[in-house]
Protein backbone atom coordinates (compact mmCIF):
# COMPACT_ATOMS: atom_id res chain seq x y z
CA UNK A 1 0.00 0.00 0.00
CA UNK A 2 2.66 2.45 1.05
CA UNK A 3 4.82 1.36 -1.84
CA UNK A 4 1.95 1.94 -4.25
CA UNK A 5 1.43 5.37 -2.80
CA UNK A 6 5.07 6.18 -3.16
CA UNK A 7 4.96 5.24 -6.81
CA UNK A 8 1.94 7.41 -7.30
CA UNK A 9 3.66 10.37 -5.73
CA UNK A 10 6.67 9.76 -7.88
CA UNK A 11 4.49 9.67 -10.99
CA UNK A 12 2.91 12.89 -9.94
CA UNK A 13 6.29 14.46 -9.44
CA UNK A 14 7.37 13.26 -12.87
CA UNK A 15 4.31 14.78 -14.45
CA UNK A 16 4.95 18.00 -12.68
CA UNK A 17 8.50 18.09 -13.88
CA UNK A 18 7.29 17.81 -17.45
CA UNK A 19 4.79 20.58 -17.08
CA UNK A 20 7.25 22.69 -15.12
CA UNK A 21 9.11 23.95 -18.15
CA UNK A 22 10.54 27.34 -17.33
CA UNK A 23 10.33 30.39 -19.46
CA UNK A 24 13.75 31.27 -20.72
CA UNK A 25 14.69 34.89 -21.09
CA UNK A 26 14.36 34.50 -24.85
CA UNK A 27 10.82 33.28 -24.53
CA UNK A 28 10.03 36.10 -22.15
CA UNK A 29 11.51 38.56 -24.58
CA UNK A 30 9.48 37.15 -27.45
CA UNK A 31 6.28 37.55 -25.48
CA UNK A 32 7.19 41.09 -24.57
CA UNK A 33 8.07 41.85 -28.17
CA UNK A 34 4.72 40.54 -29.37
CA UNK A 35 2.97 42.84 -26.93
CA UNK A 36 4.63 45.81 -28.56
CA UNK A 37 2.18 46.55 -31.38
CA UNK A 38 4.33 48.97 -33.35
CA UNK A 39 7.20 46.51 -33.41
CA UNK A 40 5.05 43.53 -34.40
CA UNK A 41 3.30 45.45 -37.18
CA UNK A 42 6.64 46.76 -38.39
CA UNK A 43 7.96 43.24 -38.48
CA UNK A 44 5.06 42.15 -40.68
CA UNK A 45 5.39 45.13 -43.00
CA UNK A 46 9.08 44.53 -43.36
CA UNK A 47 8.52 40.86 -44.10
CA UNK A 48 5.96 41.92 -46.70
CA UNK A 49 8.46 44.27 -48.33
CA UNK A 50 11.13 41.59 -48.37
CA UNK A 51 8.81 39.00 -49.88
CA UNK A 52 7.58 41.57 -52.37
CA UNK A 53 11.14 42.10 -53.55
CA UNK A 54 11.40 38.37 -54.24
CA UNK A 55 7.93 37.61 -55.55
CA UNK A 56 7.36 40.94 -57.32
CA UNK A 57 9.52 40.18 -60.38
CA UNK A 58 7.16 37.33 -61.40
CA UNK A 59 4.39 39.86 -62.00
CA UNK A 60 6.59 42.35 -63.80
CA UNK A 61 5.91 42.96 -67.45
CA UNK A 62 9.13 44.82 -68.07
CA UNK A 63 12.61 44.05 -66.82
CA UNK A 64 14.47 46.69 -64.87
CA UNK A 65 16.86 47.55 -67.70
CA UNK A 66 14.46 47.30 -70.62
CA UNK A 67 13.59 50.63 -72.19
CA UNK A 68 10.03 51.30 -73.27
CA UNK A 69 10.71 53.47 -76.33
CA UNK A 70 7.18 54.79 -76.21
CA UNK A 71 7.68 56.31 -72.81
CA UNK A 72 11.23 57.46 -73.31
CA UNK A 73 11.49 61.19 -73.10
CA UNK A 74 7.79 61.59 -72.56
CA UNK A 75 7.45 59.97 -69.19
CA UNK A 76 5.21 62.73 -67.95
CA UNK A 77 2.58 61.94 -70.59
CA UNK A 78 2.97 58.23 -71.32
CA UNK A 79 4.96 56.81 -68.42
CA UNK A 80 2.49 57.32 -65.62
CA UNK A 81 1.54 54.41 -63.38
CA UNK A 82 -1.03 52.22 -65.12
CA UNK A 83 -2.05 48.59 -65.18
CA UNK A 84 -2.64 48.48 -68.94
CA UNK A 85 0.83 49.52 -70.03
CA UNK A 86 2.38 47.11 -67.52
CA UNK A 87 4.22 50.00 -65.79
CA UNK A 88 2.52 49.59 -62.43
CA UNK A 89 4.66 52.31 -60.86
CA UNK A 90 5.15 54.23 -64.08
CA UNK A 91 8.48 54.67 -65.84
CA UNK A 92 11.54 56.74 -65.24
CA UNK A 93 12.76 59.42 -67.59
CA UNK A 94 14.52 56.90 -69.81
CA UNK A 95 11.37 54.86 -70.15
CA UNK A 96 12.47 52.05 -67.86
CA UNK A 97 9.83 50.34 -65.76
CA UNK A 98 9.82 51.81 -62.28
CA UNK A 99 8.07 48.78 -60.75
CA UNK A 100 10.97 46.52 -61.67
CA UNK A 101 13.51 49.13 -60.77
CA UNK A 102 12.02 49.68 -57.32
CA UNK A 103 12.14 45.93 -56.72
CA UNK A 104 15.74 45.85 -57.83
CA UNK A 105 16.57 48.84 -55.67
CA UNK A 106 14.87 47.23 -52.68
CA UNK A 107 16.91 44.07 -53.11
CA UNK A 108 20.16 45.96 -53.39
CA UNK A 109 19.47 48.36 -50.54
CA UNK A 110 18.35 45.61 -48.17
CA UNK A 111 21.30 43.46 -49.17
CA UNK A 112 23.75 46.27 -48.54
CA UNK A 113 22.07 46.96 -45.22
CA UNK A 114 21.99 43.37 -44.02
CA UNK A 115 25.40 42.34 -45.31
CA UNK A 116 26.99 45.55 -44.10
CA UNK A 117 25.43 45.09 -40.68
CA UNK A 118 26.59 41.46 -40.57
CA UNK A 119 30.17 42.43 -41.34
CA UNK A 120 29.96 45.12 -38.66
CA UNK A 121 28.38 42.80 -36.12
CA UNK A 122 30.82 39.93 -36.63
CA UNK A 123 33.94 42.09 -36.65
CA UNK A 124 32.68 44.32 -33.86
CA UNK A 125 31.59 41.48 -31.58
CA UNK A 126 34.79 39.51 -31.95
CA UNK A 127 36.96 42.58 -31.52
CA UNK A 128 35.00 43.95 -28.59
CA UNK A 129 34.67 40.62 -26.76
CA UNK A 130 38.38 39.86 -27.16
CA UNK A 131 39.38 43.30 -26.01
CA UNK A 132 37.04 43.23 -23.02
CA UNK A 133 37.84 39.70 -21.96
CA UNK A 134 41.62 40.03 -22.20
CA UNK A 135 41.63 43.41 -20.48
CA UNK A 136 44.76 45.21 -19.36
CA UNK A 137 47.23 46.56 -21.90
CA UNK A 138 45.77 44.66 -24.86
CA UNK A 139 42.42 46.22 -24.14
CA UNK A 140 43.96 49.67 -23.90
CA UNK A 141 45.73 49.37 -27.23
CA UNK A 142 42.77 47.82 -29.04
CA UNK A 143 40.43 50.52 -27.82
CA UNK A 144 42.81 53.35 -28.67
CA UNK A 145 42.88 52.00 -32.24
CA UNK A 146 39.09 52.21 -32.29
CA UNK A 147 39.26 55.78 -30.96
CA UNK A 148 41.65 56.78 -33.72
CA UNK A 149 39.54 55.16 -36.43
CA UNK A 150 36.47 56.83 -35.02
CA UNK A 151 37.98 60.26 -35.30
CA UNK A 152 38.29 59.84 -39.07
CA UNK A 153 35.19 61.18 -40.84
CA UNK A 154 33.77 58.03 -42.23
CA UNK A 155 31.79 59.35 -45.18
CA UNK A 156 34.94 60.98 -46.41
CA UNK A 157 36.89 57.72 -46.23
CA UNK A 158 34.10 55.82 -47.91
CA UNK A 159 33.93 58.30 -50.77
CA UNK A 160 37.70 58.13 -51.16
CA UNK A 161 37.57 54.34 -51.23
CA UNK A 162 34.93 54.38 -53.93
CA UNK A 163 36.82 56.89 -55.99
CA UNK A 164 40.14 55.08 -55.66
CA UNK A 165 38.96 51.50 -56.06
CA UNK A 166 36.13 52.21 -58.42
CA UNK A 167 32.44 52.06 -57.84
CA UNK A 168 31.24 48.60 -57.04
CA UNK A 169 28.58 47.25 -54.79
CA UNK A 170 31.08 44.90 -53.11
CA UNK A 171 33.40 47.75 -52.27
CA UNK A 172 30.45 49.70 -50.97
CA UNK A 173 29.32 47.25 -48.37
CA UNK A 174 32.78 46.18 -47.34
CA UNK A 175 33.58 49.84 -46.85
CA UNK A 176 30.44 50.58 -44.88
CA UNK A 177 30.64 47.37 -42.86
CA UNK A 178 34.28 47.75 -41.97
CA UNK A 179 33.77 51.28 -40.82
CA UNK A 180 30.61 50.78 -38.82
CA UNK A 181 31.91 48.00 -36.58
CA UNK A 182 33.55 50.59 -34.36
CA UNK A 183 30.47 51.42 -32.31
CA UNK A 184 29.60 47.76 -32.12
CA UNK A 185 33.00 46.86 -30.73
CA UNK A 186 32.69 49.53 -28.06
CA UNK A 187 29.28 48.38 -26.97
CA UNK A 188 30.31 44.73 -26.88
CA UNK A 189 33.48 45.52 -24.98
CA UNK A 190 31.56 47.44 -22.34
CA UNK A 191 29.12 44.60 -21.96
CA UNK A 192 31.90 42.04 -21.75
CA UNK A 193 33.64 44.04 -19.06
CA UNK A 194 30.42 44.04 -17.08
CA UNK A 195 29.88 40.34 -17.58
CA UNK A 196 33.45 39.42 -16.79
CA UNK A 197 33.01 40.62 -13.24
CA UNK A 198 29.67 38.91 -12.70
CA UNK A 199 29.69 36.27 -10.05
CA UNK A 200 28.49 33.53 -12.36
CA UNK A 201 31.65 33.92 -14.45
CA UNK A 202 33.66 33.70 -11.26
CA UNK A 203 31.67 30.67 -10.20
CA UNK A 204 32.50 28.99 -13.50
CA UNK A 205 36.17 29.85 -13.12
CA UNK A 206 36.33 28.48 -9.58
CA UNK A 207 34.76 25.27 -10.81
CA UNK A 208 37.50 25.00 -13.41
CA UNK A 209 35.57 25.72 -16.61
CA UNK A 210 38.01 26.61 -19.41
CA UNK A 211 38.28 30.14 -20.79
CA UNK A 212 36.94 29.05 -24.14
CA UNK A 213 33.86 27.47 -22.57
CA UNK A 214 33.36 30.54 -20.41
CA UNK A 215 33.29 32.74 -23.50
CA UNK A 216 31.02 30.49 -25.53
CA UNK A 217 28.72 29.32 -22.75
CA UNK A 218 28.55 32.27 -20.41
CA UNK A 219 29.63 35.43 -22.19
CA UNK A 220 28.36 35.16 -25.76
CA UNK A 221 24.77 34.09 -24.93
CA UNK A 222 24.53 37.06 -22.61
CA UNK A 223 25.81 39.37 -25.33
CA UNK A 224 23.40 38.20 -28.01
CA UNK A 225 20.57 40.40 -26.82
CA UNK A 226 22.45 43.64 -27.16
CA UNK A 227 24.05 42.52 -30.40
CA UNK A 228 20.64 41.73 -31.89
CA UNK A 229 19.26 45.12 -30.91
CA UNK A 230 22.23 46.98 -32.21
CA UNK A 231 22.26 45.05 -35.47
CA UNK A 232 18.63 45.92 -36.23
CA UNK A 233 19.39 49.55 -35.55
CA UNK A 234 22.52 49.36 -37.67
CA UNK A 235 20.75 48.10 -40.81
CA UNK A 236 18.80 51.33 -41.45
CA UNK A 237 21.90 53.37 -40.70
CA UNK A 238 23.80 51.52 -43.36
CA UNK A 239 20.91 51.77 -45.82
CA UNK A 240 20.91 55.50 -45.22
CA UNK A 241 24.65 55.70 -45.77
CA UNK A 242 24.37 53.73 -48.98
CA UNK A 243 21.51 55.91 -50.15
CA UNK A 244 23.50 59.00 -49.43
CA UNK A 245 26.47 57.68 -51.38
CA UNK A 246 24.17 56.69 -54.22
CA UNK A 247 22.49 60.07 -54.04
CA UNK A 248 25.90 61.61 -54.61
CA UNK A 249 26.20 59.37 -57.64
CA UNK A 250 28.98 57.22 -56.21
CA UNK A 251 27.00 54.15 -55.22
CA UNK A 252 25.63 51.37 -57.36
CA UNK A 253 26.27 51.39 -61.09
CA UNK A 254 23.68 51.60 -63.83
CA UNK A 255 21.61 49.73 -64.77
CA UNK A 256 21.56 48.41 -61.20
CA UNK A 257 19.96 50.74 -58.77
CA UNK A 258 19.13 51.28 -55.15
CA UNK A 259 16.68 53.34 -53.16
CA UNK A 260 19.11 56.20 -52.93
CA UNK A 261 19.80 56.22 -56.66
CA UNK A 262 16.10 56.04 -57.49
CA UNK A 263 15.27 58.87 -55.13
CA UNK A 264 18.01 60.94 -56.68
CA UNK A 265 16.62 60.39 -60.18
CA UNK A 266 13.09 61.03 -59.00
CA UNK A 267 14.11 64.21 -57.23
CA UNK A 268 15.95 65.37 -60.32
CA UNK A 269 12.89 65.11 -62.52
CA UNK A 270 10.29 66.37 -60.07
CA UNK A 271 9.84 69.57 -62.09
CA UNK A 272 8.57 67.55 -65.08
CA UNK A 273 5.49 66.53 -63.10
CA UNK A 274 6.57 62.91 -62.79
CA UNK A 275 6.21 62.85 -59.03
CA UNK A 276 5.70 59.05 -59.01
CA UNK A 277 9.38 58.67 -59.87
CA UNK A 278 10.17 60.13 -56.47
CA UNK A 279 7.22 58.93 -54.45
CA UNK A 280 7.39 55.17 -55.05
CA UNK A 281 11.05 54.64 -54.08
CA UNK A 282 10.70 57.19 -51.30
CA UNK A 283 7.71 55.37 -49.83
CA UNK A 284 9.57 52.07 -49.77
CA UNK A 285 12.63 53.72 -48.29
CA UNK A 286 10.79 55.57 -45.54
CA UNK A 287 8.50 52.71 -44.59
CA UNK A 288 11.38 50.24 -44.36
CA UNK A 289 13.50 52.55 -42.27
CA UNK A 290 10.64 53.16 -39.87
CA UNK A 291 10.07 49.43 -39.63
CA UNK A 292 13.70 48.76 -38.78
CA UNK A 293 13.73 51.42 -36.11
CA UNK A 294 10.49 50.22 -34.56
CA UNK A 295 11.73 46.63 -34.53
CA UNK A 296 15.01 47.70 -32.99
CA UNK A 297 13.14 49.66 -30.38
CA UNK A 298 10.83 46.75 -29.66
CA UNK A 299 13.77 44.38 -29.33
CA UNK A 300 15.53 46.72 -26.97
CA UNK A 301 12.49 47.02 -24.74
CA UNK A 302 11.94 43.28 -24.86
CA UNK A 303 15.52 42.44 -23.94
CA UNK A 304 16.12 45.30 -21.53
CA UNK A 305 17.61 43.82 -18.39
CA UNK A 306 16.00 46.52 -16.26
CA UNK A 307 12.58 45.03 -16.88
CA UNK A 308 13.53 41.57 -15.68
Amino acid at each position, binding site marked *: MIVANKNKIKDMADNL*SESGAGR*SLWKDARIRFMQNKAATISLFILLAIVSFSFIGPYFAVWSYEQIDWNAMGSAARVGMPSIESGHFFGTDDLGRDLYSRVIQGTQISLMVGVLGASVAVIVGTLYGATSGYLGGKTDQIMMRIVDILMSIPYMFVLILLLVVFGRSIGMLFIGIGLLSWLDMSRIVRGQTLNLKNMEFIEAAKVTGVSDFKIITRHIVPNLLGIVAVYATLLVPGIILAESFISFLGLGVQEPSTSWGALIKEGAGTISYETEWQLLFPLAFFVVSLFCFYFIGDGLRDALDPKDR
Partner: protein
Amino acid sequence: MSNQTILEVENLTVNFDVSSEGDMPWTKAKKLQAVNDISFSLSAGETLGVVGESGCGKSTLARAIVKMVPAESGKVVWLGNDLLGLSHSEARQYRKQIQMIFQDPLASLNPRMNIGEIIAEPLRTHYPKTPESDVKARVRDVMHKVGLLDNLVNRYPHEFSGGQCQRIGIARALILKPKLIICDEPVSALDVSIQAQVVNLLMDLQEEMDLALIFIAHDLSVVKHISTKIMVLYLGNMVELANSNDIYQSPSHPYTQALISAVPIPDPNVEKNKELILIEGDLPSPINPPSGCVFRTRCQKAQDICSQQKPEYKEVATSHSVACHFND
Protein backbone atom coordinates in the same frame (compact mmCIF):
# COMPACT_ATOMS: atom_id res chain seq x y z
CA MET B 1 33.77 13.67 12.41
CA SER B 2 37.34 13.08 11.44
CA ASN B 3 39.96 15.46 12.67
CA GLN B 4 42.28 15.27 9.74
CA THR B 5 43.63 18.65 8.71
CA ILE B 6 42.66 19.29 5.12
CA LEU B 7 43.65 22.88 4.55
CA GLU B 8 46.61 24.77 5.89
CA VAL B 9 47.23 28.36 4.96
CA GLU B 10 50.66 29.65 5.86
CA ASN B 11 51.69 33.30 5.80
CA LEU B 12 49.46 34.08 2.85
CA THR B 13 49.98 37.57 1.47
CA VAL B 14 48.18 39.15 -1.45
CA ASN B 15 49.10 42.51 -2.94
CA PHE B 16 47.31 44.45 -5.61
CA ASP B 17 48.82 47.06 -7.85
CA VAL B 18 46.73 50.16 -7.85
CA SER B 19 47.29 53.05 -10.18
CA SER B 20 45.29 56.12 -9.45
CA GLU B 21 43.47 58.20 -12.02
CA GLY B 22 45.72 60.58 -13.89
CA ASP B 23 48.89 58.61 -13.28
CA MET B 24 51.42 58.60 -16.06
CA PRO B 25 52.05 55.17 -17.58
CA TRP B 26 55.55 55.09 -16.15
CA THR B 27 54.67 55.99 -12.56
CA LYS B 28 55.12 52.99 -10.34
CA ALA B 29 51.83 51.49 -9.27
CA LYS B 30 51.22 51.61 -5.55
CA LYS B 31 50.96 48.39 -3.66
CA LEU B 32 47.78 47.64 -1.84
CA GLN B 33 48.16 45.01 0.81
CA ALA B 34 44.87 43.20 0.64
CA VAL B 35 45.81 40.19 2.72
CA ASN B 36 48.82 40.25 4.97
CA ASP B 37 50.56 37.25 6.44
CA ILE B 38 47.59 35.08 7.31
CA SER B 39 47.91 31.55 8.64
CA PHE B 40 45.32 29.08 9.80
CA SER B 41 44.38 25.46 9.42
CA LEU B 42 41.10 23.73 8.91
CA SER B 43 39.97 20.14 9.52
CA ALA B 44 37.20 18.18 7.90
CA GLY B 45 33.83 19.02 9.39
CA GLU B 46 35.06 22.29 10.86
CA THR B 47 33.85 25.78 10.09
CA LEU B 48 36.07 28.79 10.08
CA GLY B 49 34.18 32.03 10.35
CA VAL B 50 35.95 35.03 8.87
CA VAL B 51 34.72 38.38 10.10
CA GLY B 52 35.66 41.93 9.28
CA GLU B 53 34.41 45.19 7.84
CA SER B 54 34.01 45.44 4.11
CA GLY B 55 37.34 46.08 2.50
CA CYS B 56 39.26 44.16 5.12
CA GLY B 57 40.39 41.53 2.64
CA LYS B 58 38.09 38.66 3.54
CA SER B 59 36.90 38.13 -0.01
CA THR B 60 40.43 38.42 -1.29
CA LEU B 61 41.52 35.79 1.19
CA ALA B 62 38.84 33.45 -0.15
CA ARG B 63 39.81 34.11 -3.73
CA ALA B 64 43.49 33.60 -3.04
CA ILE B 65 42.75 30.17 -1.60
CA VAL B 66 41.05 29.10 -4.81
CA LYS B 67 43.70 30.85 -6.91
CA MET B 68 41.38 33.40 -8.39
CA VAL B 69 43.77 36.14 -7.37
CA PRO B 70 47.52 35.53 -7.37
CA ALA B 71 49.21 35.40 -3.98
CA GLU B 72 52.38 37.35 -3.36
CA SER B 73 53.85 34.85 -0.96
CA GLY B 74 52.85 32.10 1.43
CA LYS B 75 51.39 28.67 1.00
CA VAL B 76 47.97 27.12 0.63
CA VAL B 77 48.44 23.48 1.49
CA TRP B 78 45.52 21.31 0.46
CA LEU B 79 45.77 17.69 1.60
CA GLY B 80 49.55 17.95 1.62
CA ASN B 81 49.98 19.77 -1.72
CA ASP B 82 50.83 23.42 -2.04
CA LEU B 83 48.17 24.68 -4.44
CA LEU B 84 49.98 27.91 -5.19
CA GLY B 85 52.95 26.03 -6.58
CA LEU B 86 50.80 24.02 -8.97
CA SER B 87 50.15 24.93 -12.56
CA HIS B 88 46.61 25.60 -13.68
CA SER B 89 46.04 22.13 -15.05
CA GLU B 90 47.55 20.44 -12.00
CA ALA B 91 45.38 22.52 -9.72
CA ARG B 92 42.31 21.51 -11.71
CA GLN B 93 41.93 18.17 -10.00
CA TYR B 94 41.76 19.92 -6.63
CA ARG B 95 39.24 22.39 -7.95
CA LYS B 96 36.48 19.87 -7.64
CA GLN B 97 37.21 19.40 -3.94
CA ILE B 98 36.97 23.09 -3.14
CA GLN B 99 33.82 24.89 -4.19
CA MET B 100 32.51 28.33 -3.55
CA ILE B 101 29.20 30.06 -3.02
CA PHE B 102 28.73 33.75 -3.53
CA GLN B 103 27.26 36.85 -2.05
CA ASP B 104 24.74 37.84 -4.71
CA PRO B 105 22.68 34.72 -5.32
CA LEU B 106 21.08 35.88 -8.55
CA ALA B 107 24.26 37.29 -10.08
CA SER B 108 26.05 34.03 -9.44
CA LEU B 109 23.72 32.17 -11.80
CA ASN B 110 23.94 32.60 -15.56
CA PRO B 111 20.57 34.11 -16.57
CA ARG B 112 20.55 32.25 -19.89
CA MET B 113 20.92 28.77 -18.43
CA ASN B 114 18.22 26.78 -16.72
CA ILE B 115 18.62 25.44 -13.22
CA GLY B 116 19.44 21.93 -14.36
CA GLU B 117 22.25 23.14 -16.61
CA ILE B 118 23.60 25.42 -13.93
CA ILE B 119 23.74 22.74 -11.27
CA ALA B 120 25.17 20.18 -13.67
CA GLU B 121 27.91 22.41 -15.00
CA PRO B 122 30.68 21.42 -12.55
CA LEU B 123 29.87 17.75 -13.15
CA ARG B 124 29.95 18.16 -16.91
CA THR B 125 33.20 20.10 -16.68
CA HIS B 126 35.08 17.56 -14.62
CA TYR B 127 33.43 14.39 -15.85
CA PRO B 128 32.39 15.21 -19.41
CA LYS B 129 31.66 11.56 -20.18
CA THR B 130 28.97 11.10 -17.55
CA PRO B 131 25.87 9.70 -19.26
CA GLU B 132 22.97 12.13 -19.41
CA SER B 133 20.73 9.99 -17.21
CA ASP B 134 23.35 9.95 -14.45
CA VAL B 135 23.75 13.70 -14.67
CA LYS B 136 19.99 14.09 -14.31
CA ALA B 137 19.91 11.77 -11.34
CA ARG B 138 22.75 13.56 -9.62
CA VAL B 139 21.13 16.94 -10.21
CA ARG B 140 17.87 15.68 -8.72
CA ASP B 141 19.75 14.28 -5.81
CA VAL B 142 21.47 17.53 -4.85
CA MET B 143 18.30 19.50 -5.44
CA HIS B 144 16.59 17.33 -2.85
CA LYS B 145 19.51 17.85 -0.52
CA VAL B 146 19.20 21.62 -0.60
CA GLY B 147 15.43 21.50 -0.36
CA LEU B 148 14.44 22.32 -3.92
CA LEU B 149 11.75 20.46 -5.81
CA ASP B 150 13.29 18.62 -8.71
CA ASN B 151 10.52 19.68 -11.08
CA LEU B 152 12.13 23.10 -11.16
CA VAL B 153 15.08 21.97 -13.27
CA ASN B 154 13.80 23.62 -16.42
CA ARG B 155 13.21 26.98 -14.85
CA TYR B 156 15.47 29.98 -15.14
CA PRO B 157 17.18 31.93 -12.35
CA HIS B 158 15.06 35.07 -12.66
CA GLU B 159 12.00 33.03 -11.68
CA PHE B 160 13.37 32.37 -8.20
CA SER B 161 13.67 34.34 -4.98
CA GLY B 162 17.03 35.21 -3.47
CA GLY B 163 16.91 32.41 -0.94
CA GLN B 164 16.07 29.85 -3.61
CA CYS B 165 18.84 31.16 -5.84
CA GLN B 166 21.26 30.69 -2.99
CA ARG B 167 20.03 27.11 -2.62
CA ILE B 168 20.71 26.60 -6.31
CA GLY B 169 24.20 27.99 -5.80
CA ILE B 170 24.71 25.57 -2.92
CA ALA B 171 23.45 22.69 -5.04
CA ARG B 172 25.94 23.58 -7.75
CA ALA B 173 28.71 23.63 -5.16
CA LEU B 174 27.66 20.25 -3.78
CA ILE B 175 27.31 18.22 -6.93
CA LEU B 176 30.97 17.24 -7.06
CA LYS B 177 30.88 16.16 -3.41
CA PRO B 178 33.56 18.65 -2.34
CA LYS B 179 35.47 18.58 0.93
CA LEU B 180 35.52 22.33 1.44
CA ILE B 181 33.03 25.03 0.56
CA ILE B 182 34.06 28.63 0.76
CA CYS B 183 31.03 30.79 1.44
CA ASP B 184 31.68 34.40 0.53
CA GLU B 185 29.09 36.34 2.51
CA PRO B 186 26.40 33.90 1.41
CA VAL B 187 23.63 35.48 3.44
CA SER B 188 24.46 39.19 3.42
CA ALA B 189 22.10 39.82 0.51
CA LEU B 190 19.20 37.85 1.99
CA ASP B 191 16.36 38.70 4.34
CA VAL B 192 16.98 37.91 7.97
CA SER B 193 14.48 35.05 8.14
CA ILE B 194 15.99 33.48 5.06
CA GLN B 195 19.50 33.97 6.37
CA ALA B 196 18.73 31.56 9.18
CA GLN B 197 17.32 29.01 6.76
CA VAL B 198 20.42 29.10 4.60
CA VAL B 199 22.76 28.93 7.57
CA ASN B 200 20.83 25.96 8.97
CA LEU B 201 20.88 24.26 5.60
CA LEU B 202 24.64 24.66 5.42
CA MET B 203 25.01 23.23 8.91
CA ASP B 204 22.85 20.22 8.06
CA LEU B 205 24.79 19.58 4.89
CA GLN B 206 28.03 19.94 6.75
CA GLU B 207 27.06 17.25 9.19
CA GLU B 208 25.73 14.98 6.48
CA MET B 209 28.70 15.25 4.15
CA ASP B 210 31.48 16.00 6.63
CA LEU B 211 32.19 19.27 4.88
CA ALA B 212 34.64 21.89 5.96
CA LEU B 213 33.38 25.42 5.56
CA ILE B 214 34.99 28.81 5.40
CA PHE B 215 32.19 31.20 6.18
CA ILE B 216 32.75 34.85 5.48
CA ALA B 217 30.52 37.51 6.98
CA HIS B 218 30.77 41.11 7.97
CA ASP B 219 29.34 40.77 11.41
CA LEU B 220 29.81 38.36 14.22
CA SER B 221 26.18 37.55 14.87
CA VAL B 222 25.90 35.56 11.64
CA VAL B 223 29.00 33.44 12.07
CA LYS B 224 28.39 32.84 15.77
CA HIS B 225 25.88 30.15 15.03
CA ILE B 226 27.81 28.15 12.49
CA SER B 227 31.52 28.52 13.24
CA THR B 228 33.82 26.32 15.24
CA LYS B 229 36.68 28.80 14.85
CA ILE B 230 36.52 32.49 14.18
CA MET B 231 39.09 34.71 12.59
CA VAL B 232 38.78 38.46 12.87
CA LEU B 233 40.38 40.46 10.10
CA TYR B 234 41.23 44.13 10.12
CA LEU B 235 42.75 45.84 7.10
CA GLY B 236 44.10 42.61 5.68
CA ASN B 237 45.62 41.57 8.99
CA MET B 238 44.47 38.82 11.26
CA VAL B 239 43.89 40.38 14.65
CA GLU B 240 42.43 37.44 16.52
CA LEU B 241 41.89 33.76 15.87
CA ALA B 242 40.24 31.49 18.37
CA ASN B 243 37.58 28.90 18.93
CA SER B 244 34.15 30.32 18.59
CA ASN B 245 33.33 30.12 22.30
CA ASP B 246 36.58 31.71 23.38
CA ILE B 247 36.02 34.65 21.09
CA TYR B 248 32.65 35.28 22.69
CA GLN B 249 33.64 34.59 26.24
CA SER B 250 37.01 36.24 26.33
CA PRO B 251 37.70 38.45 23.35
CA SER B 252 41.22 39.79 23.76
CA HIS B 253 41.76 42.20 20.94
CA PRO B 254 40.18 45.65 21.33
CA TYR B 255 38.69 45.36 17.85
CA THR B 256 37.06 42.04 18.60
CA GLN B 257 35.78 43.39 21.87
CA ALA B 258 34.14 46.25 20.05
CA LEU B 259 32.60 43.89 17.51
CA ILE B 260 31.25 41.64 20.24
CA SER B 261 29.77 44.52 22.15
CA ALA B 262 27.79 45.36 19.03
CA VAL B 263 26.14 41.94 18.87
CA PRO B 264 22.76 42.14 20.58
CA ILE B 265 22.24 39.79 23.48
CA PRO B 266 18.80 38.17 23.79
CA ASP B 267 18.71 38.71 27.56
CA PRO B 268 17.36 42.23 28.26
CA ASN B 269 19.08 42.54 31.64
CA VAL B 270 22.46 41.76 30.24
CA GLU B 271 21.78 43.88 27.20
CA LYS B 272 20.89 46.89 29.35
CA ASN B 273 24.04 46.77 31.40
CA LYS B 274 26.26 45.98 28.48
CA GLU B 275 28.90 48.52 27.69
CA LEU B 276 28.87 49.39 24.04
CA ILE B 277 32.32 50.04 22.66
CA LEU B 278 32.09 52.29 19.66
CA ILE B 279 34.70 52.25 16.99
CA GLU B 280 35.23 55.78 15.85
CA GLY B 281 36.69 57.07 12.65
CA ASP B 282 36.97 55.48 9.27
CA LEU B 283 38.82 52.47 8.07
CA PRO B 284 42.30 53.72 7.09
CA SER B 285 43.32 53.29 3.46
CA PRO B 286 44.93 49.92 2.82
CA ILE B 287 47.32 51.61 0.38
CA ASN B 288 48.75 53.57 3.21
CA PRO B 289 48.20 51.52 6.38
CA PRO B 290 49.11 52.96 9.79
CA SER B 291 52.57 52.16 11.10
CA GLY B 292 52.88 49.61 13.85
CA CYS B 293 49.54 48.17 14.80
CA VAL B 294 47.04 48.58 11.97
CA PHE B 295 44.21 49.23 14.39
CA ARG B 296 45.93 52.01 16.33
CA THR B 297 44.10 54.89 14.61
CA ARG B 298 40.82 53.71 16.07
CA CYS B 299 41.94 51.86 19.17
CA GLN B 300 40.97 53.19 22.58
CA LYS B 301 43.87 51.51 24.30
CA ALA B 302 46.53 52.70 21.90
CA GLN B 303 49.85 53.72 23.46
CA ASP B 304 53.08 55.02 21.99
CA ILE B 305 54.46 51.58 21.37
CA CYS B 306 51.51 50.76 19.12
CA SER B 307 52.65 53.19 16.46
CA GLN B 308 56.24 52.02 16.58
CA GLN B 309 56.03 48.28 16.72
CA LYS B 310 53.82 45.86 14.97
CA PRO B 311 52.35 43.48 17.55
CA GLU B 312 53.19 39.78 17.12
CA TYR B 313 50.63 37.02 17.25
CA LYS B 314 50.66 35.66 20.72
CA GLU B 315 48.87 32.67 22.12
CA VAL B 316 46.88 33.92 25.07
CA ALA B 317 45.26 30.54 25.62
CA THR B 318 45.28 27.26 23.75
CA SER B 319 44.56 27.90 20.09
CA HIS B 320 43.66 31.49 20.79
CA SER B 321 46.06 33.96 19.27
CA VAL B 322 45.89 37.72 19.26
CA ALA B 323 47.90 40.51 17.72
CA CYS B 324 47.97 43.23 20.34
CA HIS B 325 50.64 44.61 22.64
CA PHE B 326 48.32 44.70 25.57
CA ASN B 327 46.21 41.63 25.88
CA ASP B 328 44.48 41.24 29.11
